[in-house]
């Protein structure tokens, strides 16, 4: 049986963090759905706050520390990625963006991604569609249709006549994401891929 690897990236800065809490809840929802379909699932959470200094250093030196390299490899090697950021100044946090800036632009091509964010008020919820969705569209990830935004008030209330409550949104997002993950074929080992030299030369010849 195929084992699926799910990774959540949380850019929450405090401890405990509602961003981390949302990441955990989403992981759980996706995992539950995949377990129903009898997949074995491995999950891992990457807290960017632990890597903040390493991320900054990578920009200066051009290469990641061992801990950061491991984190990047974990994300790029996952079958599905859940990303959660707090909203800072009308967008994702700089730490969140910086982490994804260090990932090879082709490394997440076709990878199912579930986007989510947390914030103080519900009025920031479009950050999912004007900031996170374009970022992952650029990376050519397969972004799940439902994205989850959790404002502070959502943690203590149900839905209203227009919107489902947070638990229902988490479940729906988790299910959609799980379906994408399960539908994706096994990722081939892309290491050491060589374009034979004759082909490189031939590509330059006039037709």
């Amino acid at each position, binding site marked *: 049986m195929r084992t699926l690897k799910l990774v959540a990236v949380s850019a929450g800065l405090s401890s405990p963090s509602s961003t981390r809490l949302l990441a955990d809840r989403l992981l759980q929802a996706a995992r539950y759905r995949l377990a129903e379909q009898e997949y074995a699932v491995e999950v891992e959470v990457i807290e960017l706050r632990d890597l903040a200094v390493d991320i900054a250093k990578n920009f200066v*030196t051009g*290469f990641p*520390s061992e801990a950061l390299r491991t984190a990047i490899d974990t994300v790029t090697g996952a079958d599905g990625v859940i990303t959660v950021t707090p909203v800072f100044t009308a967008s994702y946090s700089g730490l969140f963006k910086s982490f994804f800036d260090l990932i090879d632009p082709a490394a997440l091509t076709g990878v199912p991604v579930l986007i989510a964010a947390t914030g103080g008020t519900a009025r920031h919820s479009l950050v999912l569609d004007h900031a996170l969705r374009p970022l992952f569209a650029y990376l050519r990830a397969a972004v799940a249709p439902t994205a989850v935004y959790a404002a502070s008030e959502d943690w203590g209330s149900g839905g209203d006549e227009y919107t489902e409550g947070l638990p229902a949104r988490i479940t729906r997002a988790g299910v959609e994401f799980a379906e994408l993950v399960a539908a994706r074929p096994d990722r081939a080992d892309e290491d050491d*891929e060589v374009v034979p*030299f004759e082909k*490189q030369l031939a590509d*330059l010849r006039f037709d």
Partner: protein
Amino acid sequence: MQFGIFTVGDVTTDPTTGRTPTEHERIKDTVAIALKAEEVGLDVFATGEHHNPPFVPSSPTTLLGHIAARTENLILSTSTTLITTNDPVKIAEDYATLQHLADGRVDLMMGRGNTGPVYPWFGQDIRQGIPLAIEHYSLLHKLWREDVVDWEGKFRSALQGFTSTPRPLDGVPPFVWHGSIRSPEIAEQAAYYGDGFFANHIFWPKQHTEKMVRLYRQRYAHYGHGTPEQAIVGLGGQVFIRKNSQDAVREFRPYFDNAPVYGHGPSLEEFSRETPLTVGSPQEIIERTLSFRDYVGDYQRQLFLLDHAGLPTKTVLEQLDILGEEVIPVLRKEFESLRPAGVPTTAPLHPAVQRKSGTQQPVTQQPVTQKQEA
């Protein structure tokens, strides 16, 4: 094993004195450093190529020609020559001339360059970096090996009945290395031609170097040039040496902390752990350098970066003394004793160099047999 130094040619302010050398001083000092390299028994001096401040080496053949006139044994190389933005015809002519003047003591290292604006300054498109490297080198390779060339390509005007002059010394072109940090296309290119592969190594974790060298070795064998172990590999590295470790660290730290390439990021200790940078006693340099062999296999050329980060020339010359007296002789012996039979000791040498040294060397470059491609 060949040992040498490679310079980037940066003009950097000495953080301990606040003094910045002039371009004139830096160029003259580069020559002094090269002469010292020969004096202390190193095999190779190599210079980078840059076309923007704060770097001075924009004209490697002028510099190397001058050094050639003042040295006897030093192999002169570039590190690297911009195969993307230089005209391959001019490279063929410039380096063939240099090769005659230096009696065969010339190598070339090809690179794509990492300064974006250089491409448009020389009328090229950076998005075509790899295709330019491939097409330009294939033309250069032909110009040195065929007396009369007909050629047509994408990036340069076509040639009909063109003869690049002078012809390479004794019909043997300079030995070529392809330098790359992480483009597998370049490792593949080096392997295809049976040329050398140089892994920059400095500023990068060993995983990159290990992976690229492994790929090059496999493909070298695939193209029938020999076994993977026989492929010609060169590595970079950077060191700062004093008799005892603490003095080395104390003296180098202000340079490290302020250098454009290192400064204001990880500590000296972190950087030393992640990259080949070694700051310490001769014994520490010896052990670290020998450890490179653990992940790239037996290799043929080790170049050190010494004159950078604003270090005064006097200090660089002292570094060369220590390197020549205490480090290289031990490394030569150790590497040689570990090298399995059948693996080349050095990169191929021009027959003129071979004749002159008179020593038994396993690898000589072969003259090109003239033939026209159909």
